[in-house]
């Protein structure tokens, strides 16, 4: 399996602090990679680097073999890298369907002039984006809430909407930043089945940052462990579970990982 995403000696410094230190990891096509580590290990910074929100201090990021470091985030997103955010960043005042259509629109190609003069081509692409978005929303039982404002939705529905919005980009790689944050164990396990179903249906490659260990262990094919921006362990879930350095990073010295 060829590596869909690969980073080589990726580093990022904020002033003196080294958030990501010489990180080289790869994600293979169709795989679910779990990324775990204590708070402040640099996980979200990694996602921000992957999606181009700020450029790396040094090192390379290759997506489908081509370098994407330093590209405008929208360019990276259009190449098929979609993400959700740790704290939900929906377009709160816009309706549910508009949130999804904004992501779907980036796949449409109509010139600004065509839009201004309402050419038939622009009209059809509008219709297409409405129907495709409604299809996606119905798939995830959000169809009935299409006209509601995204800000008015329940917490769970907002989490699902964020995933639906990411899927509207028809991504090859989906970056999930703590999707189960603030959920109790039973909701987390529900989300796990949901994500497994999504992974199958949309033939996705997923990189998952999560603190719910059962979820990560159940979903991930491989796991990378970060601590203070440095990769300290990697491998399949069982190897990582027993690895002493991981336990030490998480729980201090003694104690057994559940």
């Amino acid at each position, binding site marked *: 399996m060829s590596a869909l995403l690969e980073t080589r000696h990726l580093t990022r410094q*904020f002033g003196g602090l080294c958030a990501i230190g010489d990180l080289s990891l790869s994600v293979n096509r169709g795989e679910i990679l779990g990324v775990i580590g204590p708070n402040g290990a640099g996980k*979200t910074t990694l996602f*921000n680097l992957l999606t181009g*929100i*700020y450029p790396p201090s040094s090192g390379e990021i290759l997506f489908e073999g081509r370098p994407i470091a330093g590209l405008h985030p929208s360019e990276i997103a259009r190449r098929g890298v979609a993400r959700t*955010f740790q704290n939900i960043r929906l377009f709160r005042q816009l309706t549910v369907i508009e949130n999804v259509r904004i992501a779907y629109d980036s796949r449409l190609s109509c010139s600004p002039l065509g839009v201004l003069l309402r050419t038939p081509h622009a009209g059809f692409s509008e219709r297409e984006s409405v129907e495709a978005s409604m299809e996606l929303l119905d798939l995830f039982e959000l169809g009935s809430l299409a006209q509601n404002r995204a800000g008015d939705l329940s917490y769970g529905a907002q989490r699902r909407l964020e995933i639906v919005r990411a899927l509207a980009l028809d991504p090859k790689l989906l970056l999930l930043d703590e999707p189960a944050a603030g959920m109790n164990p039973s909701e987390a396990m529900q989300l796990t089945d949901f994500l497994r179903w999504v992974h199958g249906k949309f033939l996705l490659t997923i990189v998952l940052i999560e603190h719910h260990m059962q979820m990560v262990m159940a979903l991930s094919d491989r796991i990378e462990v970060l601590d203070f921006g440095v990769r300290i362990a990697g491998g399949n879930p069982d190897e990582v579970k027993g690895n002493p350095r991981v336990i030490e990073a998480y729980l201090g010295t003694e104690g057994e990982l559940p």
Partner: protein
Amino acid sequence: MKYLAQQAINALQLGSIYALIALGYSMVYGVLTMINFAHGDVFMLGAFFCLLLIALVPVPFWLALIVVMAATALLGTLIERFAYRPLRKAPRVSAIITALGCGLVIQNTTLGISPYARPMPRLLENATYQFGGITITMLQIVIIGVSLGLMLALDFLIRKTSFGMAMRAIASDRAMVSLLGIPANEIIAITFAIGAALGGAAGLLYGMAYPVVSASMGITVGWKAFVAAVIGGIGNMRGAVLGAFILGSVEVMTVAVLPSTYRDLISYSLLLLILVFKPYGLLGKPALHKA
């Protein structure tokens, strides 16, 4: 050479007046990250308050200065209390619009009350002194002196006193400050009062330097001082003073060389240049843009 020295004095005088007003803009922006567009009109009212005061009871210059500063300080707190505080949580744009609205209301009410330009009474004997061909008047010395004095006092207040520390704390993180027991609203009100007092003082000095007081002078000088505050780095006190003297000298020097219509063109192009290359002004600090 004598000619340039004379122009330098003119620039110093203009710069010090811009500095006093620019400080008002930077203080309010520092604390509330809000551009107080009504500040230019508070400056204009400083001159009108002085007119009112002298018409009622003729007082010496120093007393007039204090009374005018107190009056504009009160006005500043009133504006903050009734127009800006309710908008503390509203989107920042509506705060700017309210400031613009208040400014126009103040200006046009003053215009309604006294549409004619009024003469500024003479508070100081205006002796002129000659140094090797350069003339400097008592008035200019007083203006530059008072402005520098107020600026140093303000700098001391912000750097050394606990009130100053509280102001800087609010500037960095307003939400956190109220959790730590600092009375944020009072500090903000006092900041407004000080800013308005400085504006009032500048109004008085401006009225004495140019003894014709009219309601529309707030707009023109107010915008210039705002530009000075931005050049120096809005929110940064020393930046405001630096920006003011730069703008003062640029304006005087352009008029000394080119026809006066180029003055605004040059000063605003300077502003644009600085904003493009140093978006946060000469001394401003960029806020990191985090996800």
